[in-house]
């Protein structure tokens, strides 16, 4: 039975050390460690964000004919969720930089034309690559493997953290894009 007491002791000592280490980290300079309670990444949907502004796009044929078809993405301190239709409008107007958060092999097999591959697992430890993203004032659309893929939200948040603005994501991701018959490129192509 001594082993059980010892085991409980090891778990207790480890847990206390872990909590103490994190406490020290949060109170040191520069701080390290993580929040005690994980907070969900705060997002705003494009529809909600644009709700207060007049939507000239939909019912202004003249503006559409003149090529003003790109939705105006507001500048918010949070990632903005866009639907496929908005992503496609931005794509057609070449008004946004598309970022693919999936792994290079998935990217090579097919991606949104003109998108850059920033595999989340790699770039999360390499802020320089995030900063170097050539957004050039355009909004950014992050997408990943679709489904319940949260990588795109997390990457969008990372991009905001390093100073990019007007960062959006669409959860449908590449499967939804491809499923709608939208253009697809293959190959490593535009690596970043």
């Amino acid at each position, binding site marked *: 039975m*001594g*082993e*059980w*007491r*010892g*085991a409980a*002791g*090891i*778990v207790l*000592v*480890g*847990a206390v*050390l*872990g*909590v103490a*280490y*994190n406490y020290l*980290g949060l109170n040191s300079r520069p701080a*390290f*460690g*993580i*929040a*005690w*309670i*994980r907070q*969900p990444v705060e997002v705003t949907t494009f529809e909600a964000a644009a709700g207060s502004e007049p939507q000239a796009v939909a019912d202004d044929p003249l503006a559409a004919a003149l090529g003003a078809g790109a939705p105006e993405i507001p500048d918010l301190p949070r990632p903005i969720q866009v639907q496929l239709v908005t992503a496609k409008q931005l794509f057609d107007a070449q008004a946004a930089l598309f970022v693919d958060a999936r792994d290079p092999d998935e990217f090579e097999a097919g991606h949104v034309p003109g998108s850059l591959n920033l595999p989340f*697992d790699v770039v*999360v*430890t390499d802020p320089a690559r995030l900063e170097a993203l050539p957004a050039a004032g355009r909004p950014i659309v992050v997408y990943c*493997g679709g489904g319940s893929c*949260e990588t795109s939200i*997390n990457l969008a948040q990372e991009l905001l953290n390093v100073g990019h603005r007007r960062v959006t994501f669409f959860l449908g991701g590449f499967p939804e894009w491809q499923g709608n018959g939208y253009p697809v490129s293959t190959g490593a192509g535009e690596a970043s």
Partner: protein
Amino acid sequence: MRTGVVRVAQWIVGGVFVLAALAKIGGLDAFALQVHNFRMMPMALENLVAMTFPWIELVAGLSMILGIRPRSGAFVAAAMMAAFVVTVAVAMARGLDIECGCFGTADATRVGVSKLLQNLGLLGISLVASGRRPEA
């Protein structure tokens, strides 16, 4: 079981645990996200798990390497490996395409059969390291 075999098993598991723990402690942000990606528990608990588990691993690993209550350390290791086997199996069954996080960001291995076998192997060595006879 012979003491020598048990001792070697303790060194192996202890070494793996210390390395895995240090990798996670060094990249706590990333590890917390990896824990989150498993979607195994309420979000409120995830960070507490992320900040304590690596240290429990570290203490258990050191106990086995240094020979301070090594069998207790092996018990803890076996319990943790059993939990990790279940966790990986559940993630696979749910079709999650995620990083294991077993060694923090030092190992980008995706959750899959090889990771499951690796965990089962380590579970087996942990049981040997706990010095229990198979029939006990």
